[in-house]
């Protein structure tokens, strides 16, 4: 187990790549979902602010949609979820990779990529 955590630490650059790759995929999928949905237009919050005189607000609140309210932020939500899945994926892949690390095939791949072995 200790070796596994050391291995995870040693290959953290792969982890960063996998997590960011998954988060990127999640972000794109989230944006895709958001682009297919209609925009919120005028929101309940806009109406509430319009009814309160003491809050500073744009002159046409409740008449024109506000830009800030149109984002649903699905891209960040999905990026977070997929990023967490990426961490899990990294852990699983490294658990599978560790016993195979010294196989000739993987040594040849690392040599081909020019990755320096940690002594």
């Amino acid at each position: 187990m200790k070796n596994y955590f050391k291995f995870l630490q040693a290959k953290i650059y792969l982890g960063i790549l996998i997590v960011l790759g998954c988060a990127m995929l999640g972000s794109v999928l989230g944006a895709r979902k958001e682009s297919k949905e209609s925009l919120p237009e005028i929101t309940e919050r806009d109406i509430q602010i319009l009814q309160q005189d003491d809050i500073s607000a744009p002159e046409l609140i409740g008449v024109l949609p506000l830009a800030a309210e149109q984002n649903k932020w699905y891209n960040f939500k999905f990026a977070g979820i997929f990023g967490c899945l990426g961490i899990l994926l990294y852990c699983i892949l490294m658990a599978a990779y560790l016993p195979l690390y010294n196989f000739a095939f993987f040594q040849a791949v690392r040599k081909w990529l020019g990755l320096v072995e940690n002594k």
Partner: protein
Amino acid sequence: MQLNLKDGQKVGHNGNPAEFKRMRYVIIIMFIHIGLTFWLQTHAQIGGDGIFTYTLANNPYSFEYIDYTYKRLPQNNGWISAHILRESYIIEDYDKFNYSSVYFHQRIDNHPLLYYTLVHTVCSIFANSYSNLYTMIINLFFLCAVDILIIRLFWKLYGKAGYAVVPFAFLFLMVVMQELYVLPRMYMALAFFCFWYLYMHWNFISNEEWKKSDLVKMTVCVFLGTQTHYYFYVYAFSLTVFTIVYLLFKHRKNNLFWYVYSGIIGIAVSWILFPWIIWHIFLNQMSKHTEIESWSLKKFNEYVQFLNDKLFNGRGMIAIGIIAVLCICVVLLKKTAKPKTSNLVRFHVMVFGSGFIYSLIIFTLDDAIWYYMTPLFLTFILWFSMILLGLIERIVPQKRKEALTSGTAVICIIIVLSISAVIDWAQAYLKEYNIVVNLRNTAQEYQQYDCIFIEQYQNNLFQGYWFEFGDYDEFKKIPLTDFQQKGITKEDLMGRKDDSGLIVYAPMEYVNGKEYKLLASRGSYGVYELDDEAIQ
């Protein structure tokens, strides 16, 4: 003598007091450059580009194009509160540092986030006010960064502080650079990030051992560059191709792995933050580049003419002549070249190649739109400076070599670009500024008045007068066809909340009558004070 900076070593005199003195002169030149640029920026004219910049960065409403939305604005016989127009480009207390609106506007526009975020930030710091300088400050910041990079790069390339004055001569005298300094868009930022990316590549090719910090900087540069303008991808691709070929050729596989890795990380973070790039580029959200003109002799001539105009102030033949004379001198004097390091030669090739490929791609897509070519300008300045220095170094005597080399190069640049070209440009620019500021001052002087705009055509910018109209109390637009038929009538004036004075923006050729008193003009439009008692 090549000078490779070691870890922690800073640009400096390296123990040579003469170099230290020369570095001080270069820094003084840099401050003069920044000072002159700032002075130029205080005379900036914003124009249509600037209107889009301020409105995309600061508009609290979701609309992007005012002409489509205008009908939805609350109107009383066509009169609206001019404050609504003002809200669209000025940050007020309710939307200070509200980046969610910036994010949405860039989703529906075709640009990434960074520049508009910076504009929104500066405008939020100076909320409830407008100034051209809010965008100019951002250009100035990136210009300072470019100047510092130039000084550092020339020190790294040659180990001679004085050589950095050569690119500064270009920065002072190229007309296109002056236009870039005062353009209220993201292109000065784009120029910086592309140049920073190029700067890093000198380290990459001249050192086999790369520091982690260099790779982190590359990731940061890629992230910020891709968030500045999508054409960063094009320039980075152009340069990256050369780098990858070089690293493969040299069997530097470890370097190649980390180089590609760092770039991918930068792009991944960029896409996580703003995945709408997919819609902007790959799904072509705004239907750009649908009619690309194929290359022909005519297009090639236009390309050459464009390069001549922008890179040489239209004096490309003189540049060719100067280079020819220098080459002849080198041959006649039979000077053997000091062996250049192969790294410097490779860097020459990368600088030239990346700029050339970039210019070909962008000219194919966008023809002669000058600001899209921004990454080419600093690349060209670097390359041509290196060419001049390389040739002149071979000719000048050893005594006072550095001063003679840089001085001769500067003289060559002055001959090529000509001081009068930039002076003529500046004079025309200042003349136009006086007209624009007169218009602006008129709007501010009469800000308690109501304003009528005789609209000749719609361009989502109120024909460039948006920021003037925002200064007034109430606003109404009347189509030119209606104005030509019946002028301004009593019925047109009904619906205002009070009987303030009236200012009319109208094409001068259609205005007649003593009731119109001309206050200012620009182009075909005049700004008139209307005597409403004379109206029937």
